[in-house]
């Protein structure tokens, strides 16, 4: 165990899986000597060579399709799109090919590929480099969707994603790359589909993902100062979604706030809210609240971008409307 950043944890997960299984390889733009746009694959090219850390042309359909085709042929690719925003040119290869192959072929294919993509605003990268698109991925049968918030989770979940026999979309947050936490040096896995209660509380459940876990924890501190005890639940994967942990928390607290950075309308929080309105309505003593980005593209200018990203006060105030 030692302190590592989220980025280092991801890098270590990749390295350890590549050492363990020579079917694992990395493919993407500038993932080689350059080390990836954000540095996640740094050092892997030197260690494993270009045979296993492959720089591609700018050709995202081909990247995702190559990963899918190679996975169906017995390998375990870890593909990177530089920004999740680029999925628009490659969506077909993900949702119609990689994710449907097994079903369409009557169970004959296995597509153990991982697609890593950084999400999120906060670095002034504007509308086409800052989105959070997990809601789209959640809606694709055959796909798993992982969205870690801490260095510890990042490493364990990435290793699980790579070992999973299904296509997995692995969504990192740019602003989390530098966040530090305790991370075991050895390899370990975290089950996909198991939420983590990041803070226990009694008065309100805050389900938060990715960067918003940290924002929610800060809001919980602030709420505690006012005598409101908030429980922060991090689903960690959105497909499968750990309904049991969320429902148990809501049963205990009787109130639910959902926080994510994606825009609210038809966003990931809609599913969580709907699920609770279906399966846990009787637990609620107050309306559900969603805290999310406003329904607009991500703006460039810092004051706009800051206003865009849900903040501690947004979560705090949302809780206060029901507690």
């Amino acid at each position, binding site marked *: 165990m030692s302190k590592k950043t989220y980025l280092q944890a991801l890098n270590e997960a990749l390295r350890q899986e590549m050492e363990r299984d020579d079917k694992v390889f990395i493919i993407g733009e500038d993932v080689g000597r350059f080390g990836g746009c954000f540095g996640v694959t740094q050092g892997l090219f030197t260690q494993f060579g270009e045979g296993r850390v492959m720089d591609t042309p700018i050709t995202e359909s081909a990247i995702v399709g190559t*990963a899918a*085709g190679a996975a169906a*042929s017995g390998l375990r690719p870890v593909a990177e799109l530089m920004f999740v925003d680029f999925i628009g040119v490659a969506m*077909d290869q993900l949702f119609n*090919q990689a994710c449907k*192959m097994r*079903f369409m072929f*009557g169970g004959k294919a296995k597509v153990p590929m991982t697609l890593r993509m950084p999400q999120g605003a906060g670095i002034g990268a504007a509308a086409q480099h800052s989105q959070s698109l997990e809601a789209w991925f959640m809606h694709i049968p055959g796909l798993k969707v992982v969205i870690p918030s801490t260095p510890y989770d990042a490493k364990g979940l990435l290793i699980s994603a790579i070992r999973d026999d299904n296509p997995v979309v692995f969504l990192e947050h740019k602003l989390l790359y530098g966040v530090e936490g305790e991370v075991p040096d050895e390899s370990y896995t975290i089950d996909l589909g198991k939420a983590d209660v990041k803070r226990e509380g009694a008065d309100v459940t805050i389900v938060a993902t990715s960067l918003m876990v940290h924002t929610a924890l800060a809001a919980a501190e602030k709420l505690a100062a006012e005598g409101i005890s908030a429980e922060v639940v991090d689903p960690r994967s959105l497909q499968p979604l750990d309904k049991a942990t969320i429902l148990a928390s809501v049963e205990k607290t009787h109130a639910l706030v959902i926080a994510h950075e994606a825009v609210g309308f038809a966003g990931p929080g809609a599913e969580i809210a709907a699920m609770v309105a279906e399966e846990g309505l009787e637990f609620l003593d107050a309306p559900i609240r969603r805290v999310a980005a406003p329904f607009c593209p991500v703006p460039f200018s810092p004051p706009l971008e800051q206003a865009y990203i849900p903040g501690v006060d947004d979560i705090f105030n949302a809780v206060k409307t029901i507690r």
Partner: protein
Amino acid sequence: MSPDKKTLVKMYETMSRIRLFETKLQEFFAAGRIPGFVHLYIGEEAVATGACAGLTNADKITSTHRGHGHLIAKGGDLKLMMAEIFGRKTGYCKGKGGSMHIADFDLGILGANGIVGGGGPLALGSALASKYSKTNAVTVCFFGDGASNQGTTQEALNMASAWKLPLVFVNENNGYGISCPQCKSMAVTDIADRAAAYDMPGVVVDGNDVLAVFEAVTEAVKRARHGEGPSLIECKTYRWRGHFEGDACTYRCDEELKEWMAKDPIPRMEEKLLESGVLKKKDVEAIRARIEQEVKDAVDFAEGSPLPSPAELLEDVYA
């Protein structure tokens, strides 16, 4: 490389098998007994047959929406195909895929595809896997004239060449993408000319001459196997039927069809085999009878098979 007798006869049989299998489908579709879309390959049999005749089971293909010919040429089981097209539980995909989504990984068939241009990127992955694992296998990617304009296809051509992957692109130029004639979908006459844009060999062959296809693809496969990278083989051919069964084909004229029917690849091959003495008239008849029986058996198998049950719906979504 010119094929030995066994290969010659096998190619003749394969073309006949495709023709008779699909002629049966045509009948069944007309009779309302096949659900969904059926895109027939009738008239184009020489392409798949010539392209696959030199491949082993370790070699791979990616196919298209018009995939029956590719599958049969790569050794696909008629019974399992027919059952799948009939939506039966015993079919290749347990009835989940249908005509457009048949695969047989054991035979190196990575799947038909309902997305035009969808196969190119997947073929890259398959070819990369062979290179990565040093298996020596080659992947053949079938795609149409229409598909050649799709971005995914062009990305695949580029990356295959940049990475010198063991891949052969076989373009089936039947002159149309549904109703759109080639001259409206692109300014070039020969799709093979696009090979130069990626610095790979590009060859035009008579797609109704199975030997010409065989030769060109075999040459390209050899290059690919020797690590010399991909090639693009354009096979000029024609589909006799509409784009899908039910298409009235108002966008083309009868003369064109007649011209091409006169170039039917099967009798052309038959004549050659008879003339050269490789086959006798009675061999030809025996082959036909045998394949007719195979098709009949496939139909019987399909018709005798159960439909899947709704309980199976949520199976095979995740591994």
